[in-house]
């Protein structure tokens, strides 16, 4: 390979990039508004928020994620000069051996560029947590501060510790959280600043009132500003943490995960689901698996508890080079609340497929999954260098509905579209909602356009 070939390959693969969102500027403005509010909140001391949080130790975050607006800047720690925290902090000989540990690069153990200068290294944390020994070391590479974790069996000497592969990061002074699933009893360990309050949320909750929230609980403090939470390979992908300082939330995020989380490699078992409308032949088992895994993982509920129900599956408009399918699943939580999920898949001739999340809508208890009409915009690309993207609308209503009539955002009237089995794909247009009609023209149900999938902020799940 020469550099010309590399240039060609980079330019070819760059074309796999998505197109900028049509509302990119709006998204930037929204992000800046949140950021500005964070600054104001910090400057004002966040008195109102502090009052709310003090009065309510278990504060749920909202499904919309708007609480992000109250997030203040996290406390920064001088990692290169701060005293070591943890139960082994007094063992200077052991700390020195931790400091000398090699920082391997998992993909290139011989690469010395990954080694921070020895004289800059500082052991930020060292301690035995249950049956696991944990050491966290900071150092500089090319003038930038990095931090990494080492783990091993409690009581092990330094040379028996292994660096946790994926935990290195450049924002070393900011709070960090990591989970090493390769130790016998995995824990999530969060390093904040001294004085920080650290809480964990094991999973998102689908509430009876049709909201999806998270509830945070205190973890186990093992040092000032360092807190742990026991976890497993199944639970780790759903775990979130939150750091508060002076009763202001400064960080809400998910830990880095080292090791295999979630479904075991090679496990291709399709989750059980209900198919009351007979759409199973149109729904590839891999697509069902992908969708159900997303919901069961984030909610940490089983398929038995959620009763996945196939509401619709069929072809949707997309590039000519891929087979384009959308699937709509409904879930009923034990508390009666329901969740509708729509995802499109673009499968190429090799069997690989692109997954495009469309909708994730919760509803209050008291209605059946089949009662929820849906209008969602699908944006299906083929993932090729030409980056063909086809957008369309999918309307799924009551099985007895025979026509759908969009309500355009410009106030004009649209002509009804014929439905098959209560569903249809429509040309993309600026529509606010859709009415599902029977043969007599009576409106059986109305569905607003589903909110777009939120890229870059944790999808449509609350953080």
């Amino acid at each position, binding site marked *: *390979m020469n550099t010309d070939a590399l240039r060609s390959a980079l330019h070819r693969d760059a074309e796999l990039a998505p197109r900028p969102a049509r509302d990119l*500027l709006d998204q930037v403005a929204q992000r800046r508004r949140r950021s500005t509010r964070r600054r104001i909140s910090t400057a004002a001391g966040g008195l109102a928020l502090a009052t709310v949080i003090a009065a309510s130790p278990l504060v749920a975050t909202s499904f919309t994620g708007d609480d992000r607006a109250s997030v203040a800047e996290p406390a920064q720690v001088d990692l290169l000069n701060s005293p070591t925290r943890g139960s082994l902090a007094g063992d200077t000989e052991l700390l020195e051996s931790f400091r000398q540990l090699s920082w391997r690069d998992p993909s290139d153990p011989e690469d010395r560029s990954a080694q921070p200068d020895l004289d800059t290294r500082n052991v930020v944390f060292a301690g035995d947590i249950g049956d696991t020994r944990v050491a966290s070391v900071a150092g500089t590479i090319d003038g930038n501060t990095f931090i990494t974790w080492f783990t091993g069996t409690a009581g092990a000497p330094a040379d028996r510790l292994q660096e946790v592969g994926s935990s290195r990061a450049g924002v070393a002074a900011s709070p960090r959280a990591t989970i090493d699933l390769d130790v016998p009893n995995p824990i999530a360990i969060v390093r904040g600043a001294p004085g920080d309050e650290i809480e964990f949320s094991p999973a998102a909750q689908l509430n009876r009132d049709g909201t999806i929230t998270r509830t945070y609980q205190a973890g186990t403090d093992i040092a000032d500003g360092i807190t742990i939470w026991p976890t497993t390979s199944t639970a780790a992908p759903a775990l979130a943490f939150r750091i508060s300082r002076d009763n202001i939330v400064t960080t809400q995020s998910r830990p880095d995960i080292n090791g295999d989380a979630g*479904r075991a490699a090679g496990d291709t078992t399709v989750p059980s689901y209900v198919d009351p409308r007979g759409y199973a032949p149109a729904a590839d088992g891999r697509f069902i698996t992908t969708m159900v895994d997303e919901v069961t993982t984030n909610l940490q509920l089983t398929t038995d508890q959620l009763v996945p129900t196939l509401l619709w599956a069929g072809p949707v408009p997309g590039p000519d080079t891929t087979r384009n399918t959308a699937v709509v699943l409904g879930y009923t939580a034990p508390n009666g609340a329901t969740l509708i999920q729509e995802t499109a898949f673009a499968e190429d001739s090799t069997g690989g497929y*692109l997954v495009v999340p469309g909708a994730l809508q919760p509803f209050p208890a008291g209605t059946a999954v089949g009662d929820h009409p849906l209008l969602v915009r699908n944006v299906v690309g083929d993932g090729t260098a030409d980056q063909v993207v086809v957008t369309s609308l999918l309307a799924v209503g009551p099985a007895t509905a025979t026509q759908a009539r969009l309500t355009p955002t410009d106030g004009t009237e649209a002509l009804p579209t014929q439905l098959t089995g209560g569903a249809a794909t429509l040309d993309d247009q600026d529509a606010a909602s859709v009415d599902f009609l029977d043969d007599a023209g009576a409106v059986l149900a109305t569905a607003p356009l589903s909110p777009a999938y939120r*890229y870059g902020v944790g999808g449509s799940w609350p953080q």
Partner: protein
Amino acid sequence: MAVRFDDDFADFVDRWSPALLRVAFLLTSDHGLAEDLLQTALMKTSRRWRHLADRDHAYSYVRRVLVTTHTSWHRRRRPHEVLIDRLPDLADTGSAPEPSGLGDALHALDELPPRMRAVIVLRFYEDLSEAETAVALGCSVGSVKSQSSRGLTRLRDLLTTPTPSQSYREARS
């Protein structure tokens, strides 16, 4: 609180966001993260836009923000974001002398540390000189030289030896 951007900032975003998003994608290999990265870089830039004296070089400025933001980001899993499951065109021949398969370069870049990856992208996609790359990354030319050399060696190895991660990119779920 309404945020109003200058018209020329809006024009800049309209004109340059596709190119910047491609750079972001080469840095992240992930549609969602690339969009997140671009939004973050544009938000940071928007705060300083009125103080940006040399608008002719705004692209370079935003690109620098993009790269430095990326190298400072946490690496974390986002299991519920866009999933890509693709089988590239790799025959079982035991070797692939050139990066001919779509996505091969991205797969190889995934194996590089963030800073080394940024050097490769700036040098060989954006065609910056070593000095320009050093400015963009805020490091020395010597560092760019060494990172570039090591990165090329790594890429050469990765792109001439098919690995399981190249032949099957598993969907994250």
